């Protein structure tokens, strides 16, 4: 057993601040890779960015807090609280919960391997329970593996840093398996971006010991490989040897491929291209094509929507663990935040009244909220520390300034226009509290904001109803039909009812080649259109693409509206052409200011 350095050598806050700074830099260097692990070839992947900004936000709040009087453990605990408040996106929130749980244990400044193991265990539990929608194949899986591997390795090694260094390769193996755990990853042949981000963080911690390079292959590469193999299969044999892409396929490192199907494709491709005189060439070729088609077909991202139930329980007779056990069977997305004897609980369930009944057996329910309006709504918020100035408000979170203006005009009481960087929990919380409204309806234009929003809500004193929207068009639809003179439950019910009222297509420019999605090839820099969360067409010319889209959907429309992205100029010429071509349809154009998509086009 290696007995060197029995504890982690972080003796003061200055050292720790430096380590955190190094980790931040390391993560920052890899953020683009993490961002690229996204589904569509639009520049909207921001897992890496969210993790970096979460760390950055906490670092900014800790400036000047390095002191001799404070221990490293205490410093980390404070840092973790700021991380949580500054967390952005799902990845930022889960990471923050892990660090919070970790820091709570090492706040005693004990950095021995035994205590660090306890801290990892607590971090994992905190993150896992905080996002109780336990999907395997995500960052949570890596956190659990981190705990288990750390425990195994600590039997042979005392230095926590060396333990971490030694288990990183094992964790990468777990990362390799994540596509097998989460169907969407398997189908797309990528690793989970959050899980990959967690390993990069661990690598950052160990970078001075060994500069590991994370391996992995993203969707663009998977699809690129598929495209290349298809092309090679079509080539004449005489041309094949001269094809510069052939050596790439023959020499690709299998360790970087996590998708078993793709591994099989590559193995077969090597046989076909590497040995020109094999007997079963035709059957192998067919197998390759079938497997590639399987990979393409299986790309089907899906977003679920559920009603949510929230309450605050004041109890001295139940632990968080017991409460989790008690409520776990009622639904999913269970989040419990504990502060002394108060438990803020969020759960998606079909039986909110049963949940309240169960919980109330252990104490007082200080407030309850059911977003499913078929159920009886009760709100016990009364004498809270916020002086409420109004009964209800509508809060929208959007990225484009144009959309922000439109929504403001349509009656949103407050808009958080976040530009390119997703808002942090702290930002969201401030905006919610600034409304000073007893009841708030909150809706964002991006699904990835929901987790941070829900965390902010758990800290907010208002009664907040989340409309689980994921695009700015839904927000317009909600605000167009928001009956602000009615009670909050009716307002929320109407918002949910109108969430998907307006059909729309979004148009973006591809950041990479994509082939075979629904049989559609998208080349880098081509424009492509998404409808109902699927790519439906692409074209190198924007106007041609728009005309094609209009042609498809014009028949059922009387009003077609263009919302321009931040970099798109007014396209008056095209509108004129369309108005002449479709004389019974009204065309309107507005500035949306969104960064991801050149256009949102609505059909009404």
């Amino acid at each position: 057993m290696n007995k060197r350095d029995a504890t982690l050598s972080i003796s003061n806050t200055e050292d720790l601040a430096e380590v955190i700074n190094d980790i931040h830099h390391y993560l920052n260097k890899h953020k683009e890779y993490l961002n690229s692990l996204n589904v569509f070839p639009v520049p909207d992947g921001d897992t890496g960015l969210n993790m970096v900004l979460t760390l950055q936000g906490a670092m900014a709040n800790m400036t000047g807090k390095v002191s001799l009087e404070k221990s490293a453990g205490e410093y980390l605990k404070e840092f973790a609280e700021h991380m949580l408040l500054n967390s952005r996106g799902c990845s930022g929130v889960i990471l923050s919960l892990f660090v919070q749980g970790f820091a709570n244990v090492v706040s005693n400044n004990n950095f021995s391997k035994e205590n660090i193991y306890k801290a990892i265990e607590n971090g994992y539990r905190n993150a896992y329970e905080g996002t109780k929608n336990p999907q395997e194949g995500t960052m949570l899986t890596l956190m659990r593996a981190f705990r288990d591997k750390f425990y195994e390795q600590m039997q042979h090694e005392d230095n926590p840093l060396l333990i971490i260094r030694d288990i990183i390769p094992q964790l990468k193996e777990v990362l390799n398996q994540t596509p097998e755990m989460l169907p969407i990853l398997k189908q797309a042949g990528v690793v989970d971006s959050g899980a990959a981000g967690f390993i990069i963080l661990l690598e950052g911690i160990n970078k001075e010991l060994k500069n590991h390079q994370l391996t992995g292959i993203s969707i663009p590469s998977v699809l690129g490989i598929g495209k290349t193999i298809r092309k090679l299969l079509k080539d004449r044999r005489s041309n094949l040897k001269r094809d510069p892409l052939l050596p790439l396929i023959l020499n690709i490192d299998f360790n970087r491929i996590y998708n078993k199907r793709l591994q099989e494709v590559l193995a077969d491709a090597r046989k076909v291209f590497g040995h020109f005189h094999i007997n079963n060439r035709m059957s192998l070729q067919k197998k390759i094509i079938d497997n590639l088609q399987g990979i393409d077909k299986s790309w089907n991202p899906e977003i679920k929507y559920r009603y949510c139930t929230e309450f605050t329980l004041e109890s001295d007779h139940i632990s968080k663990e017991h409460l989790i056990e008690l409520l776990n069977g009622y639904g999913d997305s269970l989040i419990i935040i504990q502060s002394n004897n108060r438990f803020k609980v969020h759960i998606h369930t079909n039986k909110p009244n049963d949940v309240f009944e169960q919980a109330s057996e252990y104490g007082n329910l200080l407030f309850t909220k059911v977003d499913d309006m078929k159920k009886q709504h009760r709100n016990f918020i009364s004498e809270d520390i916020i002086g409420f100035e109004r009964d209800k408000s509508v809060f929208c979170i959007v990225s484009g300034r144009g959309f922000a203006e439109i929504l403001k005009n349509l009656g949103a009481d407050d808009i958080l226009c976040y530009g390119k960087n997703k808002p942090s929990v702290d930002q969201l919380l401030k905006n919610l509290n600034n409304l000073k409204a007893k009841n708030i309806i909150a809706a964002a234009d991006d699904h990835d904001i929901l987790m941070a929003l829900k965390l902010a809500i758990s800290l907010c004193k208002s009664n907040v109803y989340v409309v689980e929207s994921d695009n700015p068009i839904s927000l317009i639809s909600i605000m167009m039909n928001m009956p602000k003179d009615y009670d909050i439950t009716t307002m929320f019910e109407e918002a949910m009812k109108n969430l998907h009222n307006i059909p729309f297509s979004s148009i973006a420019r591809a950041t990479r080649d994509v082939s075979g999605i629904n049989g559609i090839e998208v080349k880098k820099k081509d424009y492509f259109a998404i409808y109902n969360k699927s790519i439906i067409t692409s074209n190198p010319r924007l106007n041609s693409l728009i005309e094609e889209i209009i042609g498809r959907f014009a028949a059922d429309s009387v009003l077609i509206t263009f919302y321009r992205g931040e970099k798109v100029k007014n396209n008056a010429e095209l509108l004129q052409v369309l108005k002449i071509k479709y004389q019974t349809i009204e065309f309107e154009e507005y500035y949306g200011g969104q960064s991801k998509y050149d256009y949102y086009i609505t059909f009404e």
Partner: protein
Amino acid sequence: MEKKIFFITADNLGLTREQIDYPHLEILKFPVIIDGIGYRQSDEYNAKWLISKYENENIVAKSSTLVQKEIVDIVEKYHNDFDMMIHVLMSSGMSAASFKVAENVRKQFENVIPIINIDSRQAINGVGNVLLAIIDIMKANPILSLEEIDQKAQEVVESTFSYFVLPDLKYLYKGGRVGKAQSLMGSILHIIPVVGLIGTEKEGIIVPIGKGRTFKQVNSLIYDKITEKMNEKGVSKIKRIISIFGYGDKNADAFTDLKEKVQAIPCDDFIEGKPAIVDAVYCGPGAYGVSVYL
């Protein structure tokens, strides 16, 4: 004892004289001032004429309150032949001056003939709906006391709901009648506002009902609001619907769509109302709507 009743109302009621089946009725005409010149409803000066001026000339139109002397003249002319008079007025929340004028006349004649001034909380076809409903009640129960008439009239007022699609709220705004519907103004996005006069709202002012981006959307909204009111009141059949259209030729298809939608609701009496020059001052081109009496 059976009472002989004379009715008074004004021409912003969404109906022509011929559409009101009651012999003892006078319809006052609101003065309309266009660029400083006064006009009254006539074959020549009507809603279509004013809308055409709105569309083609840069004019400013306003309406004035009812002329007290004209009401006095009617009362003096008919009081000897009737037991009482009922004056159905547009909402006092929208024209307090006209209601005050009517009240002045009531007081002036209180020792001569009882006059009941009914604040319809409505305008245009909503006033027409209240008027026709009260006429129906009086025809069926000519022996009602003053108090009973007052009570019945109140029930009618509170059962009347009107919804208007006003493509441009500036006419309502310029005329100072936009009320709470101001919240529908100033949108960057081009929207079609729906406003209403809700009989149960004591203020009797224009309220925002909602908005849409297409006429189909706003028509569905009106349909939903009507059925919602029916559910609230536990009514399965509407007693009377009066539609209104004709502020220019615009939006004829949209109006037809709304008409078809509301005609699908069970109803005892559907009347296609007629606009007047005074309504056109506030509605502007392309406006249309329906009033329902439940």
